């Protein structure tokens, strides 16, 4: 009943933000992983950094909309496992996302191959966390 009666915009923006954030991180995973084998292509460093930066507004929209929905419906959903997983992915994952952006900037400026490998690792972990988040939220785990 709640799913059918809740306001349109918060849920729409939450889902859209999460999907576009996934797309931005997926781009970074592709470019940084390809650069692992081809460290001599500087455009990949730049592309990784800007792909991750393009995910920042997506994250903001996704997170604000999530908080808006939670504030409205916390009496119903507080304490559920899938809500906990969602918060873990969005708030805990933010640290990984910001670390990936920082390392991508370092990589873009220095061209150090190890920086690129760290970005590839962090972006991949964050991509898996996002998948865990949407599976838990949509499957209402627990």
């Amino acid at each position, binding site marked *: 009943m709640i799913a*059918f009666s809740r306001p*349109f915009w918060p*849920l*729409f923006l939450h*889902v*859209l933000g*999460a*999907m*576009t954030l*996934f*797309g*931005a991180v*997926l*781009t970074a995973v*592709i*470019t940084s992983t*390809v650069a692992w084998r081809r460290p001599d*292509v500087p*455009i*990949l460093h*730049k*592309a990784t950094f*800007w*792909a991750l930066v*393009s995910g920042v507004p997506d994250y903001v929209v996704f997170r604000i909309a999530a908080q808006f929905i939670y504030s409205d419906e916390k009496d119903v959903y507080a304490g559920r496992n899938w809500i906990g997983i969602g918060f873990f992915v969005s708030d805990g994952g933010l640290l990984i996302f910001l670390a990936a952006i920082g390392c991508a900037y370092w990589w873009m400026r220095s061209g150090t191959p190890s920086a690129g490998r760290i970005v590839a690792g962090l972006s991949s972990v964050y991509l898996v966390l996002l*998948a865990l988040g*949407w*599976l838990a939220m*949509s*499957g209402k785990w627990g």
Partner: protein
Amino acid sequence: MLHVTAAFFLVGGSVAAGILNALAIRAARPSETAYLLRLVRITLPVIGVGVAGTLIFGIWLWHELHFSIGAFWIWASLVLWVATSALGGIGGKHQERARKLAEQLAAAGDATSAELRTLLRDRKGNAMSWLAGAATLGILVLMIWKPGS
């Protein structure tokens, strides 16, 4: 859960292809443009799984959740799904033309040309990709709003 996962693959893969295309347009050298447009190919299986999964699991949910056979929002979503696939395919062909030209220029000294710049910024070719994105957004609106449900 599987339908939502497929939707994430469709939208996420399309966003990734869009970001790589936007970066390719802004790249300084044809070799860089060609490289980034080649990477768009990696997103195609992701988009393909999303396109197939949204349809298969969507129809399954239609039956499972007992939505009306004449539900407007589901039929409208199906029309937009067809439009997304068709427009995305046309947009992809435009990108392929740009990639081939960029590869030729990269092999012949890596100096950009007016023809490549025109092809990359061609409004008609890029409009197909933008319209495919707008149709995907329309599907998402209908899936969350469920007008008349």
